């Protein structure tokens, strides 16, 4: 166990050192969200095994698919660190597995898995006892499945076919998860979970723990043994698979080796476009992102076809655009310190070239998709034609703007390890930016959508106009920021730290964040991360759903309340969100004022 213990200690040390400031805020926020979900799971356990297996299936999918969003999953200890030690792959894998159990996500999952103990306790002492090994085995299955999935995806991303395949698969699965209600409706069960689903969930490895506990409750010992033994066997097999995959993991992701088209550009902006266009087609991670967005858009829009509703189908294009913007929001971050070349050639317009290249890789597909599907369903033309240009312009503006204002320093492409999804160590921030851009991109279409809803065809003009405005205006802001703060952004990229330092305080947005005492840093970080929840989903989105009379209730608290309370709740949530953000702004502002007062004599 020596290797395992050492690795666990290493991981604890690294985690302890990395829990600072904003990072700690993100982790805390994630933990809070996780605790809520875990609590929900335990409550689900009270209502019976049927719901519980379904919930655990979702947990498992989270473990498997989460890393696709969150930048390659937990890589605190990388296999590369240990290559020179000559450990056997099995030993390395079991050491890394032990270390993988340390962390916020496994702890929260274990908490969620205490739902098994709750289920067992309700069925008697023996079932409660059986639930203990079941919990641990189930957690091991989750963690290992996640690791194996990341490793397989890493291998897939070494070839173009693999990248496209992985993107398709991930997009399809996530889209259907997002539209799971369709499945419920189709199966004719709007209140509970259809038996087909619970049956399937019991067959999935995520359901075996529940099966074991249930069987113990009914004294079906062979079934208990089969379920527990099955999990143990799966753990061994997955460990062996992971060990094998670890030996295959080497080097950075390979670029496509297709014939090289010579650059034909003759101008500076043409050159940037040519460079970016080549990067889009040659970087398999970007290929994966685009395929993912496309598959997500198509499936998300096509899912309601299962219940014979075609209304969502033509929205595949817009959904694809929004997802593509979210996935590529850290545009400058993924190129790392190559920014120095942009700084050394002032006057060449890098931002516009990148915007053009983004449009070039997204717009044609989006337009064809939208037009083609709208022809099939016969509209709604004004709305689609208003929203699409607004979104395209908004996306092209946002990817530039967000990547310079919310830059997440990444690892330089030639220094990345064997996990091609891993472009930064700050995966919490990456996830945050993905969601923020999803939200913002949708907002860019709001004026056009409102205009089209009220005015019909005139909305198209609004869409085109706002699209151009987003593209031009947000791009201009990004350009200005790059010009004014280029060296600071480069330094951020070089050191990997989000905030630059120095007494003269020329850092990015000078919030005074880094001067705050640590507990206030955590509070501020928390405010900025938590504030979005009441403001956007619980406030604005819930309000929108209520205004449009949509039947969806999902997790929007307001929609579950008696009608007379719904609007007040929405308003309260919006105010709460604004208040939380305001607190986040006021704390550093006050601190700065205090320190300024202290430093001015007299």
């Amino acid at each position, binding site marked *: 166990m020596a290797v395992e213990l050492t690795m666990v200690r290493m991981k604890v040390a690294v985690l302890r050192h990395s829990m600072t400031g904003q990072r700690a805020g993100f982790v805390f926020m994630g933990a809070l969200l996780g605790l809520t979900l875990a609590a929900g799971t335990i409550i689900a356990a009270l209502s019976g095994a049927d719901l519980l297996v379904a919930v655990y299936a979702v947990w498992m999918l989270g473990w498997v698919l989460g890393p696709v969003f969150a930048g390659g999953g937990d890589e605190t200890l990388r296999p590369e660190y240990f290559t020179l030690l000559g450990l056997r792959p099995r030993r390395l894998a079991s050491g890394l597995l032990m270390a993988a159990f340390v962390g916020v996500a496994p702890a929260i999952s274990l908490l969620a898995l205490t739902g098994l103990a709750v289920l067992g306790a309700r069925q008697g002492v023996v079932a409660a006892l059986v639930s203990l090994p079941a919990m641990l085995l189930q957690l091991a299955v989750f963690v290992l499945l996640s690791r194996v999935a990341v490793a397989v995806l890493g291998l897939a991303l070494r070839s173009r076919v693999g990248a496209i395949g992985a993107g398709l698969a991930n997009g399809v699965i996530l889209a259907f998860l997002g539209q799971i209600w369709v499945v419920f409706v189709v199966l004719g069960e709007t209140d509970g979970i259809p038996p087909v689903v619970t049956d399937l969930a019991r067959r999935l490895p995520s359901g075996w723990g529940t099966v074991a506990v249930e069987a113990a409750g009914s004294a079906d010992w062979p079934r208990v043994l089969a379920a527990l033994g099955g999990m143990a066997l799966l753990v061994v097999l997955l460990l062996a698979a992971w060990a094998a995959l670890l030996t295959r993991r080497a080097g950075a992701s*390979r670029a496509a080796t297709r014939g090289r088209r010579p*650059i034909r550009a003759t101008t500076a902006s043409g050159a940037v476009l040519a460079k970016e266009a080549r990067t889009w087609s040659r970087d398999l991670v970007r290929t994966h992102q685009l395929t993912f967005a496309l598959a997500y858009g198509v499936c998300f829009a096509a899912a309601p076809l299962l219940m014979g509703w075609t209304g969502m189908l033509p929205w595949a294009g817009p959904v694809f655009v929004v997802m593509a913007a979210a996935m590529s929001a850290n545009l400058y971050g993924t190129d790392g310190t190559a920014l*120095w*070349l942009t700084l050394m050639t002032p006057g060449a317009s890098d931002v516009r070239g990148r915007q053009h290249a983004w449009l070039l890789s997204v717009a044609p597909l989006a337009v064809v998709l939208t037009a083609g599907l709208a022809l099939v369903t016969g509209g709604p033309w004004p709305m689609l034609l208003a929203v699409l240009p607004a979104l395209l312009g908004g996306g092209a503006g946002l990817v530039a703007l967000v990547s310079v204002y919310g830059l997440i320093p990444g690892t330089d492409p*030639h220094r990345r390890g064997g996990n091609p999804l891993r472009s930064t160590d700050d995966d919490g921030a990456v996830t945050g930016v993905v969601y923020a851009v999803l939200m913002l991109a949708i907002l860019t279409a709001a004026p056009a959508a409102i205009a089209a809803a009220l005015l019909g065809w005139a909305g198209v003009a609004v869409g085109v106009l706002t699209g151009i405005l987003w593209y031009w205006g947000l791009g201009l802001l990004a350009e200005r920021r790059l010009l004014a703060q280029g060296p600071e952004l480069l330094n951020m990229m070089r050191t990997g730290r989000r905030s630059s330092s120095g007494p003269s305080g020329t850092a990015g947005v000078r919030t005074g964040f880094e001067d705050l005492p640590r507990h206030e840093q955590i509070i501020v970080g928390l405010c900025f991360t938590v504030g979005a929840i009441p403001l956007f989903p619980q406030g604005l989105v819930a309000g929108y759903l209520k205004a449009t009379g949509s039947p969806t209730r999902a997790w929007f608290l307001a929609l579950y309340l008696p009608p007379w309370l719904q609007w007040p709740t929405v308003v309260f949530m919006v105010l709460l969100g604004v208040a939380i953000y305001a607190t986040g702004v006021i704390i550093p502002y006050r601190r700065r004022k205090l320190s300024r007062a202290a430093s001015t004599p007299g």
Partner: protein
Amino acid sequence: MPAALEIHGLCKTFGEKVAVDHVNLTIPQGSFYGLVGQNGAGKTTTLSMAVGLLRPDEGHARIFGADVWSDPSTAKTLVGVLPDGMAMPERLTGREVLTYLGLLRGLPRDVVDRRADELLSVLELDVAEKTLVIEYSTGMRKKIGLATALLHAPRLLVLDEPFEAVDPVSAATIKTILRGFVAGGGSIVLSSHVMALVEQLCDHVGVIDKGRVAAAGPLDEVRGTGSLEDTFVELVGTSDGGSKELTWLSS
């Protein structure tokens, strides 16, 4: 005649650590200037600030009289930079990188093509015509970096550790190119911690220690009668003398 590079009172502090502390250096036109110092002495930070890649807390830098921070477009056309360990447009081939950067610099297309051809063949990168930069070895990265620094025919080259990880044959090629550049009237600043190399190439030398200039001037003045290495150890060496040994290896 303005200096090729004039650094005046540059300061940079990272958190608590003073990385560069009021550095003054004058690199005369036509000189081959070597900047030496231990790891972490502040060479890279100084050079980054001198060319506009890192904003100084205080002080300024002028390239042929043009201030790097207030008149960047003039200053940056006059200088070619090779930073240490920075990324490139990684998914382009060497030739594509040169084409791209040449056009960014506003050079006409035919000039870019001609110079790229010549640079690739002189630096022996033309054999890897289809290889993307991300797949280059460390030495090849240095060479393509040098090519990008030379492409727009600058009058000053600022090179951070240009010979690190470069094989002897390529190093000889690079040395020839650099000597030719100086002979043609160009000026070069390079940083290194290899004393022999600096003695062999440079006519001026600056010694940086703990963020300050410990000595600067023509090579012969700085090293006096001894070797540069002796002078360097004398200037920056620690007071307890003699190097330490590893007990478990030497017993």
